[in-house]
């Protein structure tokens, strides 16, 4: 990389991206800090309770990012991505839930905002590369001529699950300076550099949904759009078809959910599936959640060019899942992959991502059908 080439650091105001800015600046690289304004905090006021710290794009976060930039003495700007975020992330997020799937908005944001339109804007202001605070590693493999991705060294913080959709062109322009560090080391660096955010708490999982209450978010968002909550009230049934009770709408449920089912039974019950078409929530025993295979579609390959023959891998089916040994088979369509697990896996959930690993190497991934 040319030494004097401007790098745009995506600064959220959190400790990770602030440390990235400080690290690159310490290396003498020219950087510009950019904060994406993704969500207007004045919207959906009914969701704002007393306890709303850690929401993205709050004025506090912008204040923190600005302070870090000032502390480093780097140029810094806030850029408005609200409209794009709404179109590419929030709207699909709601539609997926209404269709009975469980979406991964962070991946949509990475694919369509951070590593697409943000890269474009960065290049517009003269930065050919961007740097983010993701815990994952990008390396160039001379032999294959491909950019490959590896998990973050800090396994407990590894964010590669959310990054499976990155293309070679996107990887070529991206830097993940924290990929080789542990979170504790990043925090230590932030303290060492005297960054004002060094002791700030971690951000929450879905940045625009306060307190993780996605059903309340969907209700408020639909009301704001002038759409009522869809009438998807229906019955809670067992896998054998026995009616156990009523539910307020299929989008309140996600596969594997155990709590708040609103029905009583002698043994613990889990959501096995939701069927929006028939407005059914199907529940069953823990072992009924187990699946031995899945089909992934819209598969993106990162560290390998594709799949022409069956291949062994470890597959992760949600962020908190431990990648399980499996065999990948080329699917029926060009970007489809059949995953067959060695051992049955709990709660294979439509809408989530299946990400394929070979040890630390991220082979690729796709969406679970």
């Amino acid at each position: 990389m040319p030494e004097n080439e401007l790098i745009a650091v995506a600064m959220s105001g959190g400790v990770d991206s602030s440390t990235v800015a400080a690290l690159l600046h310490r290396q003498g690289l020219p950087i510009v800090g950019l904060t994406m304004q993704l969500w207007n905090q004045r919207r959906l006021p009914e969701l704002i309770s007393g306890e709303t710290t850690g929401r993205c794009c709050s004025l506090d976060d912008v204040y923190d990012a600005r302070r870090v930039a000032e502390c480093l003495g780097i140029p810094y700007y806030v850029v408005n991505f609200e409209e794009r975020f709404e179109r590419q992330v929030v709207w699909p997020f709601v539609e997926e839930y209404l269709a009975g799937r469980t979406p991964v908005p962070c991946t949509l944001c990475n694919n369509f905002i951070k590593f697409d339109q943000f890269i474009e804007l960065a290049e517009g202001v003269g930065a050919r590369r961007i740097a983010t605070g993701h815990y994952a590693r990008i390396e160039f493999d001379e032999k294959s001529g491909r950019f490959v991705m590896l998990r973050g060294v800090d396994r407990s913080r590894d964010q590669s699950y959310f990054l499976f959709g990155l293309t070679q062109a996107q990887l070529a322009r991206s830097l993940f300076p924290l990929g080789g560090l542990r979170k504790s080391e990043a925090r230590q660096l932030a303290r060492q550099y005297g960054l004002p955010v060094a002791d700030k708490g971690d951000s929450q999982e879905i940045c625009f949904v306060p307190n993780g209450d996605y059903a309340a978010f969907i209700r408020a968002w639909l009301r704001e759009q002038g759409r009522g909550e869809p009438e998807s009230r229906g019955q809670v049934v067992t896998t054998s078809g026995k009616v156990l009770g009523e539910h307020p709408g299929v989008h309140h449920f996600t596969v594997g959910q155990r709590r708040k089912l609103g029905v009583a039974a002698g043994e613990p019950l889990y959501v096995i599936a939701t069927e929006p078409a028939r407005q059914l929530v199907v529940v069953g025993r823990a072992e009924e959640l187990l699946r031995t295979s899945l089909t992934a579609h819209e598969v993106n390959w990162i560290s390998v060019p594709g799949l022409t023959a069956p291949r062994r891998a470890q597959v992760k089916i949600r962020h908190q899942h431990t990648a399980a040994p499996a065999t990948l088979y080329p699917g029926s369509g060009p970007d489809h992959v059949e995953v067959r697990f060695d051992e049955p896996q709990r709660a294979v959930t439509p809408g989530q991502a299946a990400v394929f690993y070979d040890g630390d190497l991220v082979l690729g991934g796709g969406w679970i059908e």
Partner: protein
Amino acid sequence: MNRFYFDHNATTPVSPEALDAYVSAARDGFGNASSIHHYGQAAKQKLEAARRQVAEAINCHPKEIVFVSGGTEADNLALLGAVRSCDWKQRHVITTAIEHPAVLNPCARLEREGVRVTYVQVGSDGVVDPGEIRGSLRPETILISVMHANNELGTIQPVEEIAGIAREAGVLFHSDGVQALGRIPVDVKALEVDLYSLSSHKVFAPKGAGVLYVRKGVRLEPLLYGGHHERDLRPGTENVPAAAAFGVACDYLRREAGVEAERLRTLRDRLEKGILERVPVVRVNGSVEKRLPNTSNLCFEGLEGEAMVIGLDLRGCAVSTGAACSSGAVEPSHVLTAIGLPAEKAKASIRFSLGRGNTTEQVDTLIDAVAATAAHLRQLSPTWSVHA
């Protein structure tokens, strides 16, 4: 890196004479202007001198000048004060879609109080049609508010004509003159307005002083309650340094504004010509003739205005797009939307606004920077390659 400032409609640098007046008033006029003693009197003298200077600059009686904290407060006092002092059951206000938020948001507030508000639309030239104002009059109309010059486009509104319509109908007329003062002649007697807003920091004085011209006989309900300052219209110990600096800035305008306006017009035309010659598919937003001599709002079709502003700032040139929201991000401009620009053209628009410090050399540097930034962005832009 040399840095140049081309965003004078946002705010202006403080001139040496205004700074001197500010500092000397803060040092020697620290007394409370309401106090009986020597110190109070010294402050009072400075305050009243400033009042005379502002009055002279806009041709009114000093007693018609009410000092407030800034343009926003002046607009709020005019709108809320005029409407709330009227006890009619039905009250109606006419304003325009291109006003500053300091007018639009008090109107929104009044709507929540049960007042009806008509927002008159403008054509693509960004100039209000007085006929539309006349057509919006109702028996219960009590106030018309139309800005003198628009902050984003620089377009000058037919204020004199609208004042005539208001007078004929027996309706109060307020004009927000924050962008007009110092750039075009402002004579409140000739304009025959009832209320007129001014701001110190747009005319090379520090932030902190605004003025509402209140024609003799116009009744207003105050926004604040306290002492008897500013004829009971604006309680609170007077900000004498800010007023003194504003007064001195007005004095300067009275002497120099005409010559300076012509100098800026020449510079602005040079800037516009230079950009139009070197960058393809650029259009002037709003009327080319009826606008402030220092302002140019250009649409660079197919490129992202936000990236352009940041790119120019990294090259040392300060310009602006749209209006900044609380985080500092850019929001789509309601003014550009009101003149009928689709979202992508509104987002591709940049405002250049010149002022006292700008020179021919600076403008030529800006032209080079704009040409380079636009070429870079166009070469990246997928939408542009479709056009080309």
